[in-house]
Protein backbone atom coordinates (compact mmCIF):
# COMPACT_ATOMS: atom_id res chain seq x y z
CA UNK A 1 0.00 0.00 0.00
CA UNK A 2 1.55 3.30 -1.08
CA UNK A 3 1.05 6.22 1.25
CA UNK A 4 0.14 9.67 0.00
CA UNK A 5 3.10 12.02 0.34
CA UNK A 6 4.06 15.61 -0.39
CA UNK A 7 4.79 14.86 -4.05
CA UNK A 8 1.22 13.72 -4.70
CA UNK A 9 -0.20 16.95 -3.38
CA UNK A 10 2.29 19.02 -5.33
CA UNK A 11 1.53 17.21 -8.58
CA UNK A 12 -2.20 17.67 -7.98
CA UNK A 13 -1.60 21.34 -7.26
CA UNK A 14 0.53 21.81 -10.40
CA UNK A 15 -2.03 20.05 -12.59
CA UNK A 16 -4.89 22.13 -11.18
CA UNK A 17 -2.86 25.32 -11.61
CA UNK A 18 -2.17 24.50 -15.26
CA UNK A 19 -5.83 23.67 -15.91
CA UNK A 20 -6.84 26.99 -14.37
CA UNK A 21 -4.22 28.95 -16.30
CA UNK A 22 -5.18 27.24 -19.56
CA UNK A 23 -8.85 28.01 -18.96
CA UNK A 24 -8.16 31.64 -18.02
CA UNK A 25 -6.23 32.12 -21.26
CA UNK A 26 -8.53 30.36 -23.77
CA UNK A 27 -12.08 30.62 -22.37
CA UNK A 28 -14.33 33.27 -23.86
CA UNK A 29 -16.97 33.62 -21.16
CA UNK A 30 -15.69 36.09 -18.56
CA UNK A 31 -17.57 34.33 -15.74
CA UNK A 32 -15.80 31.09 -16.66
CA UNK A 33 -12.47 32.96 -16.68
CA UNK A 34 -13.21 34.08 -13.12
CA UNK A 35 -13.90 30.44 -12.19
CA UNK A 36 -10.59 29.37 -13.75
CA UNK A 37 -8.81 31.99 -11.65
CA UNK A 38 -10.46 30.49 -8.57
CA UNK A 39 -9.07 27.08 -9.60
CA UNK A 40 -5.58 28.60 -9.83
CA UNK A 41 -5.91 30.12 -6.37
CA UNK A 42 -7.13 26.83 -4.92
CA UNK A 43 -4.21 25.02 -6.53
CA UNK A 44 -1.96 27.41 -4.64
CA UNK A 45 -3.89 26.69 -1.45
CA UNK A 46 -3.30 22.94 -1.84
CA UNK A 47 0.42 23.52 -2.32
CA UNK A 48 0.59 25.80 0.71
CA UNK A 49 -1.26 23.42 3.01
CA UNK A 50 0.78 20.44 1.78
CA UNK A 51 4.04 22.26 2.39
CA UNK A 52 2.84 23.39 5.82
CA UNK A 53 1.84 19.82 6.72
CA UNK A 54 4.97 18.03 5.53
CA UNK A 55 7.59 20.60 6.49
CA UNK A 56 6.86 20.37 10.23
CA UNK A 57 9.93 21.49 12.18
CA UNK A 58 11.56 18.99 14.57
CA UNK A 59 10.22 19.10 18.16
CA UNK A 60 12.60 21.63 19.77
CA UNK A 61 11.60 24.27 17.21
CA UNK A 62 8.20 25.91 17.66
CA UNK A 63 5.53 24.77 15.18
CA UNK A 64 4.73 27.43 12.59
CA UNK A 65 1.29 27.81 11.10
CA UNK A 66 2.16 30.40 8.45
CA UNK A 67 1.20 28.06 5.59
CA UNK A 68 -2.30 27.46 6.91
CA UNK A 69 -2.75 31.13 7.82
CA UNK A 70 -1.67 32.11 4.31
CA UNK A 71 -4.43 29.89 2.89
CA UNK A 72 -7.10 31.63 4.95
CA UNK A 73 -5.95 35.02 3.69
CA UNK A 74 -5.95 33.77 0.10
CA UNK A 75 -9.55 32.56 0.47
CA UNK A 76 -10.73 35.89 1.87
CA UNK A 77 -8.97 37.92 -0.81
CA UNK A 78 -10.30 35.61 -3.55
CA UNK A 79 -13.84 36.25 -2.35
CA UNK A 80 -13.32 40.02 -2.44
CA UNK A 81 -11.79 39.79 -5.90
CA UNK A 82 -14.69 37.69 -7.20
CA UNK A 83 -17.17 40.23 -5.83
CA UNK A 84 -15.55 43.13 -7.68
CA UNK A 85 -15.13 41.00 -10.80
CA UNK A 86 -18.79 39.96 -10.92
CA UNK A 87 -19.85 43.58 -10.32
CA UNK A 88 -17.80 44.69 -13.32
CA UNK A 89 -19.24 41.89 -15.44
CA UNK A 90 -22.78 42.94 -14.49
CA UNK A 91 -21.93 46.53 -15.35
CA UNK A 92 -20.71 45.46 -18.79
CA UNK A 93 -23.67 43.14 -19.33
CA UNK A 94 -26.10 46.01 -18.64
CA UNK A 95 -24.66 48.17 -21.38
CA UNK A 96 -23.50 45.57 -23.92
CA UNK A 97 -25.76 42.54 -23.33
CA UNK A 98 -22.79 40.19 -23.53
CA UNK A 99 -20.19 38.61 -21.24
CA UNK A 100 -18.11 37.19 -24.10
CA UNK A 101 -14.49 38.28 -23.82
CA UNK A 102 -14.03 38.39 -27.59
CA UNK A 103 -16.91 40.83 -27.96
CA UNK A 104 -15.66 43.14 -25.22
CA UNK A 105 -13.18 44.82 -27.53
CA UNK A 106 -13.86 48.57 -27.76
CA UNK A 107 -10.16 49.29 -27.35
CA UNK A 108 -7.45 47.82 -29.54
CA UNK A 109 -4.04 48.66 -30.95
Amino acid sequence: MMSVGLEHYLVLSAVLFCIGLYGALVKRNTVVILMCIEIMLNAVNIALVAFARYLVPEPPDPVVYSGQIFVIFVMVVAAAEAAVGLALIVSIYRSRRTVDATEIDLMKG
Partner: protein
Amino acid sequence: MNYHLLIPEMCLAGTAIAVILLDLVIARKGILQMASIAALIAAIVVSAALWGKADPDIFNGLLRADQFAIFFKVLFSGAAILVLLTTKDYVSKIARFQGEYYALILLSVVGMMLMAASRDLITIYVSLELTSISLYALVGFLKDPKSSEAGLKYLLLGAVASAILLYGMALIFGITGETRLAEIAAAVPAGRIWDNPLLLLGVMFMIGGFGFKIATVPFQMWVPDVYEGAPTTVTAYLSVASKAAGFAVILRVFLEAFGGDILPDWAMIFAVLGAISMTVGNVIAISQTNVKRMLGYSSIAQAGYLMVGLAAATRVDGANDPVLFGPTGLVFFLGCYALANLGAFIAIIAITNKTKSDAIDDFAGMGSRAPVISLALTLCLISLTGVPPTAGFLAKLYLFNAAVHHDLVWMVIVGVINSAISAYYYLRVVKMTWFGTPASAEGVPSSLALRLALAVACAGVLALFFYPSPLLDVARDAAQSVAGAVLP
Protein backbone atom coordinates in the same frame (compact mmCIF):
# COMPACT_ATOMS: atom_id res chain seq x y z
CA MET B 1 4.47 47.88 20.73
CA ASN B 2 5.24 50.61 18.23
CA TYR B 3 1.69 51.35 17.21
CA HIS B 4 2.56 55.01 16.61
CA LEU B 5 4.52 53.91 13.54
CA LEU B 6 1.21 52.92 11.97
CA ILE B 7 -0.44 56.31 12.44
CA PRO B 8 -0.26 57.27 8.71
CA GLU B 9 -2.03 54.07 7.63
CA MET B 10 -4.59 54.18 10.43
CA CYS B 11 -5.31 57.86 9.73
CA LEU B 12 -5.97 57.17 6.03
CA ALA B 13 -8.03 54.03 6.60
CA GLY B 14 -10.14 55.83 9.22
CA THR B 15 -10.69 58.78 6.91
CA ALA B 16 -11.66 56.44 4.06
CA ILE B 17 -14.40 54.87 6.16
CA ALA B 18 -15.53 58.25 7.48
CA VAL B 19 -15.72 59.62 3.93
CA ILE B 20 -17.97 56.76 2.79
CA LEU B 21 -20.30 57.28 5.75
CA LEU B 22 -20.35 61.09 5.49
CA ASP B 23 -21.11 60.78 1.78
CA LEU B 24 -24.56 59.52 2.77
CA VAL B 25 -25.49 62.65 4.72
CA ILE B 26 -23.39 65.50 3.32
CA ALA B 27 -24.68 67.39 0.29
CA ARG B 28 -21.57 69.49 -0.34
CA LYS B 29 -19.12 66.87 -1.59
CA GLY B 30 -16.24 69.35 -1.60
CA ILE B 31 -15.91 68.73 2.12
CA LEU B 32 -15.11 65.06 1.43
CA GLN B 33 -12.35 66.08 -0.95
CA MET B 34 -10.95 68.49 1.64
CA ALA B 35 -11.05 65.81 4.33
CA SER B 36 -9.25 63.32 2.09
CA ILE B 37 -6.52 65.80 1.18
CA ALA B 38 -6.14 66.81 4.83
CA ALA B 39 -5.73 63.16 5.84
CA LEU B 40 -3.09 62.64 3.14
CA ILE B 41 -1.19 65.75 4.26
CA ALA B 42 -1.35 64.49 7.84
CA ALA B 43 0.00 61.12 6.66
CA ILE B 44 2.92 62.86 4.93
CA VAL B 45 3.72 64.98 8.00
CA VAL B 46 3.58 62.03 10.41
CA SER B 47 5.61 59.80 8.06
CA ALA B 48 8.26 62.47 7.67
CA ALA B 49 8.42 62.88 11.45
CA LEU B 50 9.12 59.14 11.79
CA TRP B 51 12.13 59.39 9.43
CA GLY B 52 15.20 57.67 10.82
CA LYS B 53 13.70 56.46 14.13
CA ALA B 54 15.79 53.83 15.89
CA ASP B 55 13.35 50.93 16.22
CA PRO B 56 11.27 50.75 13.03
CA ASP B 57 9.79 47.24 13.42
CA ILE B 58 6.03 46.88 13.87
CA PHE B 59 4.09 43.70 14.73
CA ASN B 60 7.17 41.68 15.51
CA GLY B 61 8.80 42.59 12.22
CA LEU B 62 5.87 41.96 9.88
CA LEU B 63 6.05 45.60 8.88
CA ARG B 64 8.95 48.00 9.05
CA ALA B 65 8.70 51.79 8.94
CA ASP B 66 12.29 52.38 7.83
CA GLN B 67 13.47 55.24 5.61
CA PHE B 68 12.69 53.18 2.52
CA ALA B 69 9.06 52.66 3.54
CA ILE B 70 8.72 56.29 4.62
CA PHE B 71 10.04 57.60 1.30
CA PHE B 72 7.40 55.60 -0.52
CA LYS B 73 4.65 56.55 1.91
CA VAL B 74 5.35 60.21 1.19
CA LEU B 75 5.52 59.51 -2.56
CA PHE B 76 2.15 57.68 -2.62
CA SER B 77 0.42 60.30 -0.48
CA GLY B 78 1.89 63.13 -2.57
CA ALA B 79 0.73 61.50 -5.80
CA ALA B 80 -2.74 60.97 -4.33
CA ILE B 81 -2.94 64.63 -3.26
CA LEU B 82 -2.05 65.87 -6.76
CA VAL B 83 -4.62 63.50 -8.27
CA LEU B 84 -7.34 64.56 -5.83
CA LEU B 85 -6.61 68.23 -6.54
CA THR B 86 -7.29 67.66 -10.23
CA THR B 87 -10.44 65.67 -9.55
CA LYS B 88 -12.50 68.87 -9.25
CA ASP B 89 -12.14 69.36 -13.01
CA TYR B 90 -13.14 65.79 -13.66
CA VAL B 91 -15.83 65.57 -11.07
CA SER B 92 -18.83 66.13 -13.33
CA LYS B 93 -18.35 62.62 -14.68
CA ILE B 94 -18.39 60.98 -11.25
CA ALA B 95 -20.73 63.36 -9.45
CA ARG B 96 -22.96 60.71 -7.94
CA PHE B 97 -20.26 58.59 -6.38
CA GLN B 98 -17.69 61.07 -5.14
CA GLY B 99 -17.52 59.61 -1.65
CA GLU B 100 -16.61 56.16 -2.95
CA TYR B 101 -14.06 57.68 -5.30
CA TYR B 102 -12.18 59.45 -2.51
CA ALA B 103 -12.45 56.44 -0.20
CA LEU B 104 -11.09 54.05 -2.85
CA ILE B 105 -8.13 56.36 -3.54
CA LEU B 106 -7.37 56.53 0.19
CA LEU B 107 -7.67 52.75 0.61
CA SER B 108 -5.35 52.12 -2.30
CA VAL B 109 -2.82 54.50 -0.73
CA VAL B 110 -3.07 52.48 2.50
CA GLY B 111 -2.46 49.29 0.53
CA MET B 112 0.59 50.74 -1.19
CA MET B 113 2.00 52.06 2.08
CA LEU B 114 1.71 48.58 3.58
CA MET B 115 3.28 47.09 0.45
CA ALA B 116 6.34 49.28 0.87
CA ALA B 117 6.60 48.39 4.56
CA SER B 118 5.84 44.64 4.44
CA ARG B 119 8.50 42.11 5.30
CA ASP B 120 6.39 38.96 5.20
CA LEU B 121 4.94 37.19 2.16
CA ILE B 122 1.43 37.07 3.66
CA THR B 123 1.43 40.80 4.46
CA ILE B 124 2.82 41.56 1.01
CA TYR B 125 0.07 39.56 -0.67
CA VAL B 126 -2.76 41.06 1.37
CA SER B 127 -1.55 44.66 0.97
CA LEU B 128 -0.97 44.11 -2.75
CA GLU B 129 -4.54 42.87 -3.13
CA LEU B 130 -5.91 45.77 -1.08
CA THR B 131 -4.21 48.08 -3.57
CA SER B 132 -5.28 46.10 -6.62
CA ILE B 133 -8.94 45.62 -5.71
CA SER B 134 -9.33 49.35 -4.95
CA LEU B 135 -7.73 50.13 -8.30
CA TYR B 136 -9.95 47.65 -10.21
CA ALA B 137 -12.99 49.47 -8.89
CA LEU B 138 -11.46 52.89 -9.67
CA VAL B 139 -10.60 51.91 -13.26
CA GLY B 140 -14.20 50.83 -13.88
CA PHE B 141 -15.54 53.85 -12.06
CA LEU B 142 -17.15 55.75 -14.94
CA LYS B 143 -19.42 52.75 -15.67
CA ASP B 144 -19.50 53.63 -19.36
CA PRO B 145 -18.67 50.75 -21.73
CA LYS B 146 -15.00 51.71 -22.17
CA SER B 147 -14.33 52.19 -18.48
CA SER B 148 -16.08 48.96 -17.45
CA GLU B 149 -14.20 47.07 -20.14
CA ALA B 150 -10.90 48.50 -18.90
CA GLY B 151 -11.81 47.59 -15.32
CA LEU B 152 -12.72 44.02 -16.24
CA LYS B 153 -9.56 43.51 -18.32
CA TYR B 154 -7.45 44.89 -15.48
CA LEU B 155 -9.19 42.64 -12.95
CA LEU B 156 -8.97 39.41 -14.98
CA LEU B 157 -5.32 39.87 -15.95
CA GLY B 158 -4.47 41.18 -12.48
CA ALA B 159 -6.08 38.18 -10.83
CA VAL B 160 -4.15 35.76 -13.07
CA ALA B 161 -0.96 37.65 -12.25
CA SER B 162 -1.62 37.50 -8.53
CA ALA B 163 -2.37 33.75 -8.77
CA ILE B 164 1.01 33.30 -10.48
CA LEU B 165 2.65 35.43 -7.80
CA LEU B 166 1.00 33.30 -5.13
CA TYR B 167 2.24 30.09 -6.72
CA GLY B 168 5.73 31.54 -6.65
CA MET B 169 5.29 32.47 -3.00
CA ALA B 170 4.03 28.95 -2.22
CA LEU B 171 7.12 27.44 -3.87
CA ILE B 172 9.43 29.77 -1.95
CA PHE B 173 7.56 28.84 1.22
CA GLY B 174 8.01 25.18 0.35
CA ILE B 175 11.74 25.54 -0.26
CA THR B 176 12.50 27.62 2.82
CA GLY B 177 9.62 26.81 5.20
CA GLU B 178 9.32 30.50 6.05
CA THR B 179 7.21 33.46 5.02
CA ARG B 180 9.34 36.19 6.61
CA LEU B 181 11.78 37.79 4.22
CA ALA B 182 14.69 37.82 6.65
CA GLU B 183 14.24 34.12 7.47
CA ILE B 184 13.76 33.21 3.82
CA ALA B 185 17.11 34.88 3.15
CA ALA B 186 18.74 32.62 5.73
CA ALA B 187 17.05 29.48 4.38
CA VAL B 188 17.50 29.98 0.62
CA PRO B 189 19.79 27.16 -0.56
CA ALA B 190 23.33 28.24 -1.41
CA GLY B 191 24.54 28.22 -4.99
CA ARG B 192 23.37 29.75 -8.24
CA ILE B 193 19.69 29.85 -9.08
CA TRP B 194 20.19 27.62 -12.14
CA ASP B 195 21.21 24.70 -9.88
CA ASN B 196 17.83 24.65 -8.20
CA PRO B 197 14.89 24.41 -10.63
CA LEU B 198 12.24 24.81 -7.94
CA LEU B 199 13.84 28.00 -6.64
CA LEU B 200 14.18 29.28 -10.21
CA LEU B 201 10.49 28.59 -10.85
CA GLY B 202 9.47 30.32 -7.61
CA VAL B 203 11.56 33.41 -8.34
CA MET B 204 10.37 33.57 -11.96
CA PHE B 205 6.73 33.36 -10.87
CA MET B 206 7.28 36.12 -8.33
CA ILE B 207 8.94 38.30 -10.98
CA GLY B 208 5.89 37.61 -13.18
CA GLY B 209 3.40 38.61 -10.50
CA PHE B 210 5.24 41.79 -9.55
CA GLY B 211 6.05 42.48 -13.20
CA PHE B 212 2.33 42.90 -13.80
CA LYS B 213 2.20 45.70 -11.21
CA ILE B 214 5.16 47.59 -12.67
CA ALA B 215 3.91 46.96 -16.24
CA THR B 216 6.98 45.37 -17.74
CA VAL B 217 7.23 43.08 -20.78
CA PRO B 218 5.86 40.37 -21.00
CA PHE B 219 3.16 41.35 -18.48
CA GLN B 220 2.32 44.68 -20.10
CA MET B 221 -0.66 43.72 -22.28
CA TRP B 222 -3.19 45.33 -19.93
CA VAL B 223 -1.53 48.75 -19.91
CA PRO B 224 -2.78 50.48 -23.09
CA ASP B 225 -6.42 49.39 -22.74
CA VAL B 226 -6.63 50.16 -19.04
CA TYR B 227 -4.91 53.53 -19.45
CA GLU B 228 -7.27 54.46 -22.26
CA GLY B 229 -10.49 53.33 -20.62
CA ALA B 230 -9.90 54.45 -17.04
CA PRO B 231 -10.87 57.93 -15.84
CA THR B 232 -7.84 60.11 -16.67
CA THR B 233 -7.27 60.99 -13.02
CA VAL B 234 -7.09 57.29 -12.19
CA THR B 235 -4.76 56.68 -15.14
CA ALA B 236 -2.42 59.34 -13.76
CA TYR B 237 -2.55 57.75 -10.33
CA LEU B 238 -2.09 54.24 -11.71
CA SER B 239 0.90 55.16 -13.84
CA VAL B 240 2.75 56.70 -10.91
CA ALA B 241 1.69 55.25 -7.57
CA SER B 242 0.93 51.68 -8.62
CA LYS B 243 4.21 51.39 -10.52
CA ALA B 244 6.17 52.87 -7.60
CA ALA B 245 4.50 50.44 -5.21
CA GLY B 246 5.48 47.53 -7.46
CA PHE B 247 9.10 48.64 -7.51
CA ALA B 248 9.09 49.20 -3.75
CA VAL B 249 7.92 45.66 -3.09
CA ILE B 250 10.34 44.18 -5.66
CA LEU B 251 13.28 46.01 -4.09
CA ARG B 252 12.25 44.88 -0.62
CA VAL B 253 11.61 41.23 -1.50
CA PHE B 254 14.56 40.66 -3.80
CA LEU B 255 17.13 42.54 -1.75
CA GLU B 256 16.02 41.23 1.64
CA ALA B 257 15.01 37.67 0.77
CA PHE B 258 17.11 36.91 -2.32
CA GLY B 259 20.15 39.07 -1.58
CA GLY B 260 22.48 36.08 -1.22
CA ASP B 261 24.19 33.92 -3.82
CA ILE B 262 21.37 34.24 -6.32
CA LEU B 263 21.49 38.05 -6.52
CA PRO B 264 23.48 38.24 -9.79
CA ASP B 265 21.07 35.76 -11.38
CA TRP B 266 17.86 37.68 -10.80
CA ALA B 267 19.65 40.94 -11.56
CA MET B 268 20.41 39.49 -14.99
CA ILE B 269 16.77 38.46 -15.50
CA PHE B 270 15.72 42.03 -14.71
CA ALA B 271 18.38 43.42 -17.05
CA VAL B 272 17.04 41.39 -19.98
CA LEU B 273 13.38 42.17 -19.18
CA GLY B 274 14.25 45.86 -18.76
CA ALA B 275 15.98 46.13 -22.12
CA ILE B 276 13.04 44.43 -23.87
CA SER B 277 10.53 46.61 -22.00
CA MET B 278 12.20 49.85 -23.05
CA THR B 279 12.35 48.82 -26.67
CA VAL B 280 8.83 47.42 -26.92
CA GLY B 281 7.26 50.37 -25.07
CA ASN B 282 9.04 53.03 -27.08
CA VAL B 283 8.63 51.44 -30.50
CA ILE B 284 4.89 50.80 -30.11
CA ALA B 285 4.31 54.26 -28.60
CA ILE B 286 5.42 55.85 -31.88
CA SER B 287 2.34 54.68 -33.77
CA GLN B 288 -0.22 55.72 -31.12
CA THR B 289 -2.81 58.38 -31.89
CA ASN B 290 -4.48 58.48 -28.44
CA VAL B 291 -2.49 60.43 -25.90
CA LYS B 292 -3.47 58.17 -22.97
CA ARG B 293 -2.44 55.03 -24.90
CA MET B 294 0.80 56.74 -25.87
CA LEU B 295 1.58 57.54 -22.25
CA GLY B 296 0.66 53.93 -21.42
CA TYR B 297 3.35 52.60 -23.75
CA SER B 298 5.67 55.31 -22.49
CA SER B 299 5.14 54.03 -18.95
CA ILE B 300 6.14 50.52 -20.10
CA ALA B 301 9.34 52.05 -21.46
CA GLN B 302 9.91 53.96 -18.21
CA ALA B 303 9.54 50.69 -16.30
CA GLY B 304 12.36 49.41 -18.53
CA TYR B 305 14.62 52.32 -17.53
CA LEU B 306 13.73 51.77 -13.87
CA MET B 307 14.76 48.11 -14.14
CA VAL B 308 18.29 49.25 -14.92
CA GLY B 309 18.33 50.09 -11.22
CA LEU B 310 17.32 46.52 -10.34
CA ALA B 311 19.90 45.07 -12.72
CA ALA B 312 22.56 47.15 -10.97
CA ALA B 313 21.35 46.30 -7.48
CA THR B 314 24.67 45.34 -5.98
CA ARG B 315 27.21 47.26 -4.00
CA VAL B 316 30.24 48.27 -6.06
CA ASP B 317 33.30 46.23 -5.13
CA GLY B 318 36.25 48.22 -3.88
CA ALA B 319 34.48 51.56 -3.75
CA ASN B 320 35.16 53.53 -0.56
CA ASP B 321 31.76 55.09 -0.51
CA PRO B 322 29.29 52.29 0.27
CA VAL B 323 26.66 53.68 -2.06
CA LEU B 324 24.10 51.36 -3.55
CA PHE B 325 24.11 52.93 -6.97
CA GLY B 326 21.34 50.86 -8.47
CA PRO B 327 18.65 51.09 -5.76
CA THR B 328 19.52 54.73 -5.06
CA GLY B 329 19.17 55.59 -8.73
CA LEU B 330 15.91 53.67 -8.92
CA VAL B 331 14.40 55.50 -5.95
CA PHE B 332 15.58 58.88 -7.27
CA PHE B 333 14.25 58.08 -10.76
CA LEU B 334 10.87 57.13 -9.27
CA GLY B 335 10.64 60.52 -7.54
CA CYS B 336 11.43 62.41 -10.74
CA TYR B 337 9.22 60.19 -12.89
CA ALA B 338 6.29 60.67 -10.49
CA LEU B 339 6.46 64.47 -10.75
CA ALA B 340 6.90 64.56 -14.53
CA ASN B 341 4.26 61.95 -15.33
CA LEU B 342 1.70 63.46 -12.95
CA GLY B 343 2.41 66.90 -14.39
CA ALA B 344 1.88 65.64 -17.94
CA PHE B 345 -1.36 63.91 -17.00
CA ILE B 346 -2.68 66.96 -15.11
CA ALA B 347 -2.08 69.15 -18.14
CA ILE B 348 -3.77 66.55 -20.32
CA ILE B 349 -6.77 66.42 -17.96
CA ALA B 350 -7.17 70.19 -18.26
CA ILE B 351 -6.95 70.13 -22.05
CA THR B 352 -9.05 67.03 -22.73
CA ASN B 353 -11.73 68.31 -20.36
CA LYS B 354 -12.23 71.16 -22.79
CA THR B 355 -11.83 69.28 -26.07
CA LYS B 356 -13.57 66.08 -24.86
CA SER B 357 -11.09 64.04 -26.90
CA ASP B 358 -7.94 62.08 -26.10
CA ALA B 359 -6.64 62.19 -29.69
CA ILE B 360 -3.18 63.72 -30.08
CA ASP B 361 -4.42 65.60 -33.16
CA ASP B 362 -6.88 67.51 -30.99
CA PHE B 363 -3.98 69.06 -29.07
CA ALA B 364 -3.28 71.16 -32.16
CA GLY B 365 -2.71 74.82 -31.41
CA MET B 366 -3.15 74.49 -27.64
CA GLY B 367 -0.06 76.69 -27.31
CA SER B 368 -2.10 79.72 -28.29
CA ARG B 369 -5.32 78.63 -26.54
CA ALA B 370 -3.74 77.68 -23.20
CA PRO B 371 -0.12 78.85 -23.14
CA VAL B 372 0.62 78.13 -19.47
CA ILE B 373 -0.80 74.60 -19.49
CA SER B 374 0.95 73.87 -22.80
CA LEU B 375 4.24 75.12 -21.37
CA ALA B 376 3.81 72.84 -18.35
CA LEU B 377 2.96 69.88 -20.60
CA THR B 378 6.07 70.59 -22.70
CA LEU B 379 8.27 70.74 -19.61
CA CYS B 380 6.95 67.45 -18.25
CA LEU B 381 7.29 65.65 -21.60
CA ILE B 382 10.86 66.94 -21.92
CA SER B 383 11.54 65.55 -18.46
CA LEU B 384 10.11 62.16 -19.48
CA THR B 385 12.38 62.22 -22.54
CA GLY B 386 15.34 62.96 -20.26
CA VAL B 387 16.62 66.26 -21.66
CA PRO B 388 17.97 69.12 -19.50
CA PRO B 389 16.97 71.33 -17.75
CA THR B 390 14.64 68.81 -16.11
CA ALA B 391 14.74 66.23 -13.35
CA GLY B 392 14.30 63.39 -15.84
CA PHE B 393 17.76 64.11 -17.30
CA LEU B 394 19.54 63.78 -13.96
CA ALA B 395 17.53 60.68 -13.05
CA LYS B 396 18.53 58.90 -16.25
CA LEU B 397 22.12 60.08 -15.89
CA TYR B 398 22.32 58.67 -12.39
CA LEU B 399 20.72 55.36 -13.32
CA PHE B 400 22.90 54.86 -16.42
CA ASN B 401 25.93 55.82 -14.33
CA ALA B 402 25.00 53.01 -11.95
CA ALA B 403 24.75 50.61 -14.88
CA VAL B 404 28.22 51.57 -16.12
CA HIS B 405 29.63 50.90 -12.66
CA HIS B 406 28.20 47.40 -12.84
CA ASP B 407 29.52 46.52 -16.30
CA LEU B 408 26.10 46.89 -17.86
CA VAL B 409 27.31 49.13 -20.67
CA TRP B 410 25.11 47.27 -23.14
CA MET B 411 22.06 48.34 -21.13
CA VAL B 412 23.18 51.95 -21.22
CA ILE B 413 23.54 51.75 -25.01
CA VAL B 414 20.04 50.27 -25.32
CA GLY B 415 18.73 52.93 -22.93
CA VAL B 416 20.27 55.85 -24.81
CA ILE B 417 19.01 54.60 -28.17
CA ASN B 418 15.58 54.21 -26.61
CA SER B 419 15.67 57.74 -25.20
CA ALA B 420 16.30 58.99 -28.72
CA ILE B 421 13.33 56.97 -30.01
CA SER B 422 11.13 58.28 -27.20
CA ALA B 423 12.01 61.88 -28.08
CA TYR B 424 10.17 61.36 -31.36
CA TYR B 425 6.77 60.64 -29.88
CA TYR B 426 7.02 62.93 -26.84
CA LEU B 427 8.08 65.85 -29.00
CA ARG B 428 5.39 65.07 -31.56
CA VAL B 429 2.84 66.07 -28.91
CA VAL B 430 4.88 69.20 -28.15
CA LYS B 431 5.06 70.08 -31.84
CA MET B 432 1.32 69.53 -32.25
CA THR B 433 0.65 71.72 -29.22
CA TRP B 434 2.71 74.69 -30.37
CA PHE B 435 2.68 74.53 -34.17
CA GLY B 436 -0.66 72.87 -34.97
CA THR B 437 -3.64 74.88 -36.23
CA PRO B 438 -6.12 75.47 -33.39
CA ALA B 439 -9.64 74.17 -33.97
CA SER B 440 -11.04 77.24 -32.22
CA ALA B 441 -9.77 80.27 -30.33
CA GLU B 442 -11.52 79.38 -27.07
CA GLY B 443 -9.39 79.26 -23.95
CA VAL B 444 -9.08 76.21 -21.70
CA PRO B 445 -10.67 76.76 -18.29
CA SER B 446 -9.12 75.11 -15.25
CA SER B 447 -9.74 75.24 -11.53
CA LEU B 448 -7.39 76.85 -9.04
CA ALA B 449 -6.71 73.42 -7.50
CA LEU B 450 -5.63 71.97 -10.84
CA ARG B 451 -3.32 74.89 -11.51
CA LEU B 452 -1.84 74.48 -8.04
CA ALA B 453 -1.19 70.77 -8.64
CA LEU B 454 0.36 71.52 -12.03
CA ALA B 455 2.56 74.23 -10.53
CA VAL B 456 3.79 71.85 -7.82
CA ALA B 457 4.66 69.15 -10.37
CA CYS B 458 6.46 71.55 -12.71
CA ALA B 459 8.31 73.31 -9.90
CA GLY B 460 9.47 69.91 -8.69
CA VAL B 461 10.65 68.89 -12.16
CA LEU B 462 12.71 72.08 -12.47
CA ALA B 463 13.92 72.24 -8.87
CA LEU B 464 15.23 68.69 -8.91
CA PHE B 465 17.42 69.55 -11.89
CA PHE B 466 19.06 72.56 -10.26
CA TYR B 467 19.07 71.27 -6.70
CA PRO B 468 18.88 67.45 -6.66
CA SER B 469 21.01 66.77 -3.59
CA PRO B 470 18.20 66.68 -0.97
CA LEU B 471 16.26 64.02 -2.89
CA LEU B 472 19.47 62.16 -3.72
CA ASP B 473 20.39 62.05 -0.02
CA VAL B 474 16.93 60.80 0.84
CA ALA B 475 17.10 58.18 -1.91
CA ARG B 476 20.50 57.04 -0.66
CA ASP B 477 19.24 56.68 2.92
CA ALA B 478 16.17 54.82 1.68
CA ALA B 479 18.23 52.39 -0.41
CA GLN B 480 20.67 51.94 2.45
CA SER B 481 17.91 51.10 4.91
CA VAL B 482 16.48 48.32 2.74
CA ALA B 483 19.65 46.86 1.30
CA GLY B 484 22.53 48.10 3.40
CA ALA B 485 22.34 45.30 5.93
CA VAL B 486 21.90 42.39 3.52
CA LEU B 487 24.25 43.10 0.64
CA PRO B 488 27.86 41.97 1.11
